[in-house]
């Protein structure tokens, strides 16, 4: 099966899927083949790449972690993945701020809770957030930055992590990504 490494799971609408294959596909969260948009109905459904799109709205330390863990997990499982950073999430992509600089979403306790969690994470050998973001990029993950947030918050491209961000865009671009995704999350 060499050469198939970058081809996502082949799930077709054919009736020849065995129960074993179906169970495996379900176990791997692979849905049945998606139909194309109405305007393209005449074109036979292409083998769509399985894709995950995640809106990163929160700037909280633990939630940014969740976004990157799920994102890199999706890539590792053979899906494509886009993270759309907006509002408080986008502020974590400012230069010199640090992806992990946000508070804990619960029990932050003026930083004491975060300090404790970080200590536990280090003890458990959890990957640093910055390293996880680099892995996300290396596996072909895409990061989009919301330009409306940039305007509201007075942030320019020069203020942001251009090493991570691939595209500066608005809701239409997010929807365009999400409409072809089999998994979308709002974090």
């Amino acid at each position, binding site marked *: 099966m060499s050469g198939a490494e970058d*081809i996502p799971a082949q799930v077709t609408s054919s009736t020849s899927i065995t129960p074993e294959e179906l169970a495996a596909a379900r176990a791997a969260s692979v849905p049945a083949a998606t139909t194309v948009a109405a305007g393209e109905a005449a074109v036979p459904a292409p083998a769509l790449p399985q894709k995950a799109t995640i809106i990163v709205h929160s700037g909280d330390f633990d939630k940014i972690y969740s976004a990157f863990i799920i994102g890199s997990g999706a890539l590792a499982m053979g899906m494509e993945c886009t993270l759309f950073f907006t509002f408080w999430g986008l502020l974590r992509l400012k230069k010199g701020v640090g992806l992990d600089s946000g508070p804990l979403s619960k029990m932050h306790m003026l930083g004491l809770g975060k300090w404790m969690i970080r200590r536990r994470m280090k003890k458990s050998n959890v990957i640093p957030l910055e390293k996880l973001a680099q892995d996300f990029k290396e596996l072909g993950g895409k990061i989009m930055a919301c330009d409306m947030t940039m305007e509201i918050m007075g942030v320019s491209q020069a203020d942001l992590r251009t090493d991570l961000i691939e595209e500066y865009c608005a809701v239409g671009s997010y929807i365009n990504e999400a409409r072809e995704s089999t998994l979308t999350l709002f974090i």
Partner: protein
Amino acid sequence: MAEITVDCRGDICPVPLVETRKALRKAAPGDIVEVLGTHPSSKTEIPMAVKALGLEILEIGDEGGEWKIRIKR
């Protein structure tokens, strides 16, 4: 054909899965990627990823909580 070893012993979610995928991306068709680890969930999830990628598992071994998965790219 090269044989690549990924040592994830002591690493937890999502590192073994991510490191496996990184190694598979770098490997050439026909290469063998051998992953060593201790994280229990990864032992079941790496084979799921391998299946989703359309690749082949050659061997899954476990010795006292230390597992080894051999994958053919």
